[in-house]
C-alpha cells in the first residue's frame, strides 16, 4: 500500500470521527470547564477542541512489523494547540514524553488486537483502553506550543515512543494466548500510572500538572481491570498509594 493510500484511508476515518464528535466537543468542554471566566473558557475549549482533531499517526518499531502494519483510525495530528506560554521547557519535554508514551501504549494495544488472540470482553476492553490512550495523547498535545504563524517548517507529527514500544512488542509477537497479552496490558498500564505519578512530582506548571491529574487515575483504573481479569494478587493492582516503582523514567526512555 502506498503512503498516499494509507493517508487517504486515515483521512476518511478521521472524517467519520469528526462528524461523530461535532457535538461531543461541546459536551466535553461543558463537563471539564464549568467556569464562567470567558478567557478560561476560551483557553480550555481550545484544549478540549484538540481532543476532537484526531490522534496521531503511530510509528511502529520494526520489531512489530509482522503484526503492526496498523495505524490508529485518525490522521496525523496538526499542531493546533493553544497553550499558555507559562509552561517551562522542562515541563514541555515531559509532556511530549507522556504523549509519546500514550501513543506507544495505543500502538501496543493495536498490536495485541491484531494478533487475533483477544476475544470477547478482553478484546473490547483493549479497544476501549486504546481509545482512551489516544485521547490522552490528544489532550497532552493540547498543552504543547503552537508554531508561530510565520513558521513554515512542516508540522511534526507526534509519534509513539519507540523505546517504550520495544519494551512490549517482542512480548506481544511471542505471546501464546490471551492471558499473556492481558499480562502485557497490565504491565503497560501499571507503568503508565507509575510514570504519571513521577510526572506529578516533577511538573512545575499547574496547568500541565492539572492535565496529568485527570489522566493518571484512568491508567490506574485500567490496571485494575487487567489485574482482576488475570486474578493477580490484590496488592499488585490495589496498592494503598500509587508509587513510581514501575515508572518509565524519561531520562532512560526519551524518544530517539
Amino acid at each position, binding site marked *: *500500500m502506498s503512503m498516499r*493510500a*494509507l493517508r487517504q*484511508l*486515515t483521512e476518511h*476515518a478521521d472524517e*467519520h470521527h469528526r462528524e*461523530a*464528535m461535532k*457535538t*461531543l466537543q461541546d*459536551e466535553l468542554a*461543558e*463537563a*471539564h470547564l*464549568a*467556569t*464562567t*471566566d470567558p*478567557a478560561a473558557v476560551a*483557553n*480550555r475549549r481550545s484544549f478540549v477542541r484538540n481532543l476532537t482533531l484526531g490522534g496521531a499517526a503511530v510509528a511502529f518499531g*520494526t520489531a512489530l512489523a509482522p503484526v503492526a*502494519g*496498523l*495505524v490508529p*483510525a485518525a490522521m496525523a495530528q496538526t499542531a493546533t494547540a493553544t497553550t499558555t506560554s507559562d509552561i517551562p521547557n522542562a515541563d514541555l519535554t515531559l509532556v511530549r514524553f507522556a504523549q509519546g508514551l500514550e501513543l506507544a501504549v495505543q500502538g501496543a494495544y493495536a498490536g495485541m488486537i*491484531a494478533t487475533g488472540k483477544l476475544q470477547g470482553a478482553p478484546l*473490547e476492553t483493549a*479497544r476501549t483502553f486504546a*481509545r*482512551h490512550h489516544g*485521547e*490522552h495523547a490528544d489532550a497532552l498535545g493540547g498543552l504543547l506550543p503552537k508554531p508561530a504563524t510565520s513558521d513554515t517548517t512542516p508540522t511534526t507529527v507526534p509519534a509513539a515512543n519507540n523505546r517504550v514500544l520495544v519494551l512490549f512488542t517482542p512480548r506481544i509477537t511471542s505471546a501464546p494466548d490471551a492471558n499473556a497479552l492481558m499480562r502485557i496490558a497490565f504491565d503497560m498500564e501499571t507503568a503508565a*500510572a507509575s510514570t504519571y*505519578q513521577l510526572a*506529578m*512530582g*516533577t511538573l*512545575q506548571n*499547574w*496547568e500541565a*500538572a492539572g*492535565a*496529568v*491529574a*485527570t489522566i*493518571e*487515575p*484512568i491508567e*490506574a*483504573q*485500567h490496571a*485494575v481491570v487487567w489485574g*482482576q481479569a488475570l486474578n493477580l494478587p490484590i496488592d499488585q*493492582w*490495589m496498592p*494503598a*498509594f*500509587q508509587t513510581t516503582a514501575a515508572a518509565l523514567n524519561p531520562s532512560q526512555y526519551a524518544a530517539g
Partner: protein
Amino acid sequence: MTINSDEVRRQLSASQHDHAAAMPQFREALKRVFDRDSGAAETAKAALVGVPSRRSFLTVGSATVLGSAVLVGCGTSSKKTLPVSGTSIPAPSSTTTTAPGSSEMDLTLLRTAQSIEVLAVQTYQTAIDSGLLTTPSVLDAIKLFQSQHQDHGGLLASATRNLGGVPYDTANPFLDVEIVTPALKAATDQAAIVKIAVILENTAAQTYTQAGGVLTTADLRAAIMSIGATEARHLTVLYEVQGGNPVPLPFMPTRDAAPPDSYIGPDGPVKVPTAPPTTEAPTTTKP
C-alpha cells in the same frame, strides 16, 4: 516497514464501527453524569440524599475563593456570600495564566482531603457493622478500602504538619450531614451501601484530581495524586460490583469534587452543617 493493506482496512473499519457504536452510549453517559439540565444525575442524588444540585463559588469579601480557571468541576456563575462561621479563606488569583493556588489553599485542601478520608473510614465502619454487606468479596473490598483510607488520612496529616498546619482528623461535617448520614439511614441492602461508597470514592477521586492542578508544589501534587489514583482504583472495583462500566471515562472529571461548602479552612469547616454530624448505622432490611 511492510504495511499489510487488508489488515489496515480491517482495523480501521473495526475501529470506526466500535467508535460509532460507542458514541451514543458515551453521549448518554456524559448526559447522565454531566448534563445539569437533564436532571438525571441530580435526580439520582436527590432521590438518595437531597444534595444541593448546584455547586457555588464562595465569596469572601469581594474575592472568589478559588480561581475560576481551575475549578473545572465546581459550578456555576452564581456566587454566594459566606454566611457563617467566620472562617475565611484567602482568595488566590483567578487569571488563566496565574497559578490558582496559594499556601493557604494548600492547607485547606489537605485538611479537607483528610476530613474526607476520615469520613470514608467512619462510613465504611458503619457499613461493615450494618450487616448489609452480604457478599463476602464486597465486604472484603470495603474493609480493604477502609484500611487504605486510614493510611491516606495519615499521609495527609503528615503533609499538613509539614506545612505548619494542624491536621483535621474529624469526618467532613458538610458531606456527612448532607450526603452520608441520610443515605445510610435510607440504606436497606448491599446495593444501597455500594452506591454510597461510589459517591464517596467519586467525590474523593475528583477532589484529588482537582487539587492536582491547584496545590502549589510538585511534592504536594505528587502526594495528593498518590492517593487520588487509589481512590480511582476503588471506584473501578465498585463500578464492577454494580455491574457497570469499570472505566467509564477517558479522563477523571472534577465536576463532582467536594464543593467549597465542604472545605475545612484554617479555622475549621467553611460551612457549619445544620445538624450535628453523625454516621449512624442504617436500618436493617425490612421484612
